[in-house]
Every structure is written in structure tokens, then in C-alpha cells.
């Protein structure tokens, strides 16, 4: 059974299936919902198949066209790619189930092809080992995300989408210029080959600056975060889930790869800067989240803060590489599941009450216990309380910081968690109380509630599965920096 199973080209299928599904949904809108759900489900199976394959045979490597780098493009998947693909597939399935209830009619016909193309772009991104190819996947992902943000129209969504589009295009161009400099300096766009050839030069430093800035814009790192709250808050709830959970993680994944493979040894000073901006993001984002009266804006600012934690890993990785990067990866996974769950729950509340004002949440606990539970569990993971994926991630981060005596960062991490607890409990507090004006409830389909709850439970489950997940993460040694250096 093993041989037959691992012979199927799961990795490539992860890209082709959503593309085919998206085209089918585009051609025949009548069957879009079914086709979309089926595709999302098959993608989950394919990731499992790929995982099996990687456990059996080691890292996945596919030379497209048979040419191989540097002439051709290579696909590559190690433990880190696998986990990102798994997060994408699981969040994707949850959002798909939720969306089948959320969108109706014309909006539904428009949502599914866009979402499936976004899924294809994400999978293609996590599998790619070629920096120009990554530019194309970034553009595909960005354009799909922009249209999804503006899907249901409305002044806020349109302006949020427009701002997001301009920012993402600027980021892509900066990234592409960095690719141009790297290619013309070292003669290849393949990451593994570049890792072997790179050496310090003004062009590499310029490329480092350009690509870091471009990707930071797309991730929403402070101070480049200004586009994120309007876009994530005004998008339809399932889209917000996708944006916060997956779309901002993909550029971070690229930055991480570039850092590990190419830029790491040449990055003195930049890692400190990134850590500083990350710390600022944690504090500023958390404080802003606390000040919000609208639920989705609170969640969007929370995303800004959580992104900051990822960047705190950069200065810590100099001396405690494995711990710090494992922390960043774990936080990415946990946040993806938890924030998606919270946005989906917020979507349920919106559907239910017709608004997302926090003070008017009107005993939601009674009316929508599953969604409130999803929000609470997701909140636990965001705060980093045990047991949850967030706890494991923050624990690893603290460990890395404490072992190096970086007391400032320790303080930031702890303070960030306290602020997160504050804004999560603020929402839950209103959820338990009666609002001043009662609201007429609308029915929320059970599938939408369960989608949110199951994702949130996944975030908690990550806390229990630390050992196997970290073992999976280590396949292929993603965090052992290659190239010149100690």
C-alpha cells in the first residue's frame, strides 16, 4: 500500500487541483460550491499524502520540465513547507465549509473561483524553490486576495482593497528588483544555488533591503501595517480569516527562507532592526486592539501584534537559531488556526446580530455557544495560555530570549500576552452580558459554527502535539542555515 500511495504526485497535485477546480468553478458557476468543497477536501487529503511521502522518502523535490535548476524551476518541500501546507489545507477546509453557508447566489459564484486560485497560489508558494517563481505566486496570491476583499462591495471594503492592492504591488516590485540584483550578481534564481554562491557585496545588501522591505509591506510589519486593519476588517468574514491566517504568513515564509538560505550571514544590524519593529508591532498592535469597539477591527489589530512576535525571532535566532525559528513557525501555525477561527466566529456573530460592535454583543454565549466557544479557544491560543499552540510558540520564544539575557524582549513578549488577554476577555465579557438594546437574532447554520469551533480546537490541539509537530518541522533541517557563516 505504501508504494502505491507514495507514487502519486501529491506535491504537484496540490497546485494543479485548486487550479483545475478554480477554472471549473469559473466555467460553471452552478456547481461552484460543490466543486469548491470537494477541492478543499481533496487538498487536505493531498497534504496528508505528501506528508506520508516525506516521512517515507525524505524531502520532496520535483524538477519541473525535467531540466533542474539553474535552468528550470524546482519544487521543494521539507518539514517547514509541509506544516505551512497543512495549515493552509486545514484553514482552507474550515473556511470553505463556513463559506458554503456564508455566501449566497451571485456572491457565492464569484467567491469560489477566486478562493481556489488563492489556494493554488498559496500551495505553489510553499512548494517553490525559485525566487522569480515566488514573485509570480506572490502576485497571484495578492490579486486574488484583493478581489476577495472587495467581493461584497461597500465603501470600506473597496478603499481597503484599493490600498491593499497598491501596497502589495509596491511590495512585489521591490521584491522583484531584489530578485533582479541577486540574479545578475550570481547567475541563478534558484534558492539552493544562490545559497552556495552568495557572498557579501553592495548588490546583495541592496537586495536584502529591497526584499525585506517589500515582503515586510506585504506581511504588515510595523510601520508598514497601515493597510492591514482596514482591509482585514472590511472584508467578508471568511475572507478576513484567510487574509489574517494565511495571506500574511506566506510572505513571512519567503522572508524566512531567504534569510536562512541567502541573507543570514550578511544580516548584521538588520535582524536587530526587524526585532525592534516586531517588538513595536506587538505593543502597538495590542494597545490598538484594546481600544477598538468593532470586533473585526480588534481582530485585525491583533494580527498586527501577532506578526510582531514572528519578527522578534530574528534577533534571537543569531545565537539560538533552532529554538527561535521553531518558535516562529509554531506561532505561525497556531495563529493561522486560531485567528481563522476567531474571524469565522466573528462572521457568525455578524450574521446573527447584524453588527459586530463589541459593547452590543448581547448574551451571545446563550444564543451562539459554539461560536463563542470558538472565539474563546482561539483567544486562549492567541494569548498563549497553556495548553495551546500559542503557548508552545511563546514558550520557545521566551526560552530563546531568556537564554540570551534579552530582558527587553522577554518583557515585550510577556506584556504582549497580558494585553492580548485583556482584549480577548473584554470581548468575552461583553458576550456574557446583556446589551442595552436587544437585537433580533438570525439563524446561523450549524456548519458555520462547527467550522469555527473545529479550527479553534485545532489551535489548542497544537499545544498537545508539540513533540510530533516539532519533529515534523525538523525534516530536511530547514533551520540549519546554509551558505557562508558559522
Amino acid at each position, binding site marked *: 500500500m505504501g508504494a502505491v500511495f507514495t507514487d502519486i*504526485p501529491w506535491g*504537484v497535485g496540490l497546485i*494543479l487541483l485548486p*487550479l*483545475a477546480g478554480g*477554472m471549473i468553478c*469559473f*466555467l460553471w458557476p452552478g456547481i461552484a460550491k460543490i466543486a469548491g468543497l470537494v477541492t478543499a477536501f481533496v487538498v487536505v487529503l493531498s497534504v496528508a499524502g505528501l506528508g506520508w511521502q516525506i516521512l517515507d522518502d525524505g524531502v520532496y523535490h*520535483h*524538477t*519541473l*520540465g*525535467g*531540466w533542474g535548476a*539553474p*535552468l*528550470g*524551476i524546482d519544487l521543494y518541500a521539507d518539514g517547514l513547507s509541509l506544516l505551512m501546507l497543512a495549515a493552509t489545507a486545514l484553514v482552507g477546509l474550515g473556511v470553505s465549509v463556513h463559506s458554503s453557508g456564508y455566501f449566497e447566489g451571485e456572491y457565492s459564484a*464569484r467567491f469560489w*473561483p*477566486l478562493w481556489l*486560485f488563492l489556494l*493554488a497560489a498559496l500551495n*505553489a508558494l510553499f512548494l517553490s524553490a525559485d525566487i*522569480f*517563481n515566488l514573485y*509570480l*505566486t506572490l*502576485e*497571484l496570491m495578492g*490579486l*486574488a486576495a*484583493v*478581489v476577495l476583499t*472587495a*467581493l461584497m*462591495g461597500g465603501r470600506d471594503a473597496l478603499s481597503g482593497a484599493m490600498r491593499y492592492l497598491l501596497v502589495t504591488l509596491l511590495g512585489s516590485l521591490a521584491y522583484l*528588483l531584489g530578485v533582479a*540584483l541577486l*540574479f*545578475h*550578481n550570481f*547567475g*541563478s534564481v534558484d534558492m539552493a544555488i544562490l545559497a552556495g554562491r552568495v557572498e557579501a*557585496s*553592495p*548588490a546583495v*545588501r*541592496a*537586495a536584502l*533591503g*529591497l526584499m525585506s522591505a517589500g515582503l515586510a509591506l506585504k506581511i504588515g510589519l510595523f510601520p508598514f501595517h497601515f493597510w492591514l486593519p482596514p482591509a482585514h476588517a472590511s472584508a467578508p468574514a471568511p475572507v478576513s480569516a484567510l487574509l489574517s491566517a494565511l495571506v500574511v504568513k506566506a510572505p513571512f515564509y519567503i522572508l524566512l527562507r531567504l534569510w536562512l538560505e541567502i541573507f543570514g550571514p550578511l544580516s548584521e544590524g538588520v535582524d536587530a532592526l526587524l526585532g525592534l519593529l516586531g517588538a513595536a508591532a506587538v505593543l502597538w498592535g495590542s494597545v490598538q486592539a484594546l481600544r477598538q469597539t468593532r470586533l473585526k477591527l480588534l481582530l485585525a489589530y491583533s494580527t498586527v501584534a501577532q506578526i510582531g512576535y514572528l519578527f522578534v525571532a530574528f534577533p534571537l535566532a543569531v545565537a539560538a537559531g533552532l529554538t527561535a525559528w521553531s518558535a516562529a513557525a509554531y506561532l505561525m501555525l497556531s495563529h493561522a488556526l486560531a485567528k481563522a477561527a476567531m474571524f469565522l466566529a466573528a462572521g457568525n456573530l455578524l450574521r446573527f446580530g447584524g453588527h459586530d460592535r463589541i459593547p452590543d454583543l448581547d448574551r451571545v454565549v446563550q444564543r451562539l455557544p459554539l461560536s463563542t466557544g470558538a472565539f474563546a479557544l482561539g483567544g486562549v491560543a492567541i494569548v498563549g495560555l497553556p495548553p495551546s499552540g500559542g503557548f508552545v510558540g511563546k514558550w520557545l520564544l521566551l526560552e530563546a530570549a531568556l537564554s540570551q539575557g534579552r530582558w527587553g524582549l522577554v518583557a515585550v513578549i510577556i506584556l504582549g500576552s497580558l494585553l492580548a488577554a485583556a482584549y480577548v476577555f473584554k470581548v468575552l465579557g461583553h458576550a456574557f452580558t446583556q446589551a442595552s438594546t436587544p437585537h433580533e437574532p438570525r439563524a446561523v447554520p450549524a456548519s458555520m459554527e462547527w467550522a469555527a469551533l473545529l479550527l479553534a480546537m485545532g489551535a489548542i490541539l497544537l499545544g498537545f502535539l508539540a513533540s510530533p509537530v516539532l519533529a515534523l518541522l525538523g525534516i530536511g533541517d530547514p533551520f540549519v542555515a546554509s551558505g557562508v557563516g558559522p
Partner: protein
Amino acid sequence: MEAITQLQYAFDAPLGLGLLWLAWRTLACQDLFEAVVSFAAFGLLMSLAWVRLDAPDVALAEVAVGVGLTGALLLAALAKLRSSKMNEDAAGQLGKEGSEVGRPQWLPLVVLLSVAAGLGHAVWSLPLYSAGLSPEVALHLETSGVSNPVTAVLLNFRAYDTLLEMVVLLLALLGVWTLGGTARRPEAAPGPVLDTLVRLLVPVLILVAAYLLWVGAHAPGGAFQAGALLGAMGVLMLLAGWRLRTSLMALPLRLTVVAGPGAFVAMAVITLFIEGRLLEYPPQHAGTLILILETVAALSIGATLAALFLGSRPQDLENR
């Protein structure tokens, strides 16, 4: 040799400076219409630059897509912008178009200069000679199925990039249709000159596009250039008032538009099962397979670009 080199430099300086000057005009011009026209002129000068840099494939693509299609899109958008604004309260709205091009602002100026300086230094520091990937391309060109190296890279060595790019184009159309397009102004009937011109040009353009497609295997040309030409032809026809029959505008149009990326995906799946690797052509059939892909792609690109210009989903237009 000296004289020729001197002559080339005499050509390069005005071209390079012209590019910078036209870009500045595009970005600093008070009137938006002049800005768009300057942008089109800028694109034309870029095409010249591509020819100068021995990149005729890029020149063809730039002229057709970068100048032609993008220029048409910009002008159409500008026209809709102005007509919609005239329905608005005119106080202060129309003036905004040109008012912010005032004093240079200091912080962005500092950003501009430091970015330019840093990048300029980075570029200047690169080695004088570098083969890049041309040795590998030359080495494998014979088995690629075509003899134009750019076509070989696009349709064979890095065909996966082309697959993704076709999906990006499809996604843009999907996005434009999703956003629902905008209300079309009632159009004036095309005069007899435009009508006759279009009737004369369409067959010529089809022939030239077919030629570009065919010749792309061994000379500058190929699917994108041919497709862009077909798209430009489509735009001309739309401007002259031609419209497809309603029955053709729904599924058949969608099929045409999907055919390009769909063919790539289908080819990817087929080669996956035959050769075990995505988009790996069997060497003896590579040329034929590439030609098939290019033909489908050109038709699809042409339809997509024309549909992008049209803006709204065709069936929405019929329902007004």
C-alpha cells in the same frame, strides 16, 4: 568599430534621458490626459530601448501590451472618471486632479534620493561581464523544440512560470468581472473612417498575429506577442462598435478565456503521467506540443485582453 560605438552612444544618451524625462512628465503633469499620453510615449520609447538592448521579443510585447493595451485601459478609465465626475458636484472635485502636483515634499524626496543612490551603487558594483544563464540555455536549446531562446525559456525551460502567469491574467479578468464593472456611457456611433479602417485592419491583424505565432519558434515573436495583437484587434473592434452575439458571450467566451491556462494545466497533467515530471515534453514532440500550447494561449490571451478592455461582464452589458 570606434565609429559604430560612438554612434551607439549618441543614440543611447537621448534614449535614456528621454525615458527619464517622459517618466517625469507622466508623473508630474497637471492634466491627467496629458499624463496618460506621456505614459504611452514613454512606453514607445521603452520599446526602442528594448530593441537597442537586443531584446526584440520584449519590444514586441511592450509595444502591444505595455503601450497598446495598457494605454487603451488608461484612456478608457480616464474617460469614465471624467464622465462620472461631471455628474458629481463639480465644486472642488475636478480641481483635485491637478492640484497636488505642487511643491516637492522633503521626506519622500529624501527617500527617493537615498533609494536611488543605494540602488545605483549596487548596480554599479556588479561585475562587468557575466554570462548569466545563457550557457545553460545555449546548451539545451537543441532539445527544447524551438530555436528562439526566449520562446524556449517561456514555453519549455520555465513553462511553469508561464502557466502561473496565464492564471494571473485569467484572475485579473475574473476580478474585473467580480467587481461588476462600471456603467458604460452611451457611445457615439463610429464614423465611416473608423468603420472602414477596422474592416480593413482586422484580417491584416489576424494574419500578422498568426505569423508572429508561427515565427516565434525561430525568430522574435511567440504566443504573447500574437495574443497581444489579437487583443488589440479586439479592442479596435469594440471601439468601432462591434459586439459579440449574446449567445456567444457567456460560456463560449469563458471557455476561450480559460483555454489558455487550462491548456497549460492539461499539458502539465499529461506530461506528469507520461514523463513523470510536470511539463517535461518528450524531446521528439516538444516543438509540436509547444506550438499547440502557443496557439491556444494566443487565442486565449487575445480574448482575455479584449475582455479586460470591455470591463464589465458581457451579459451584464446586455441587461442594461
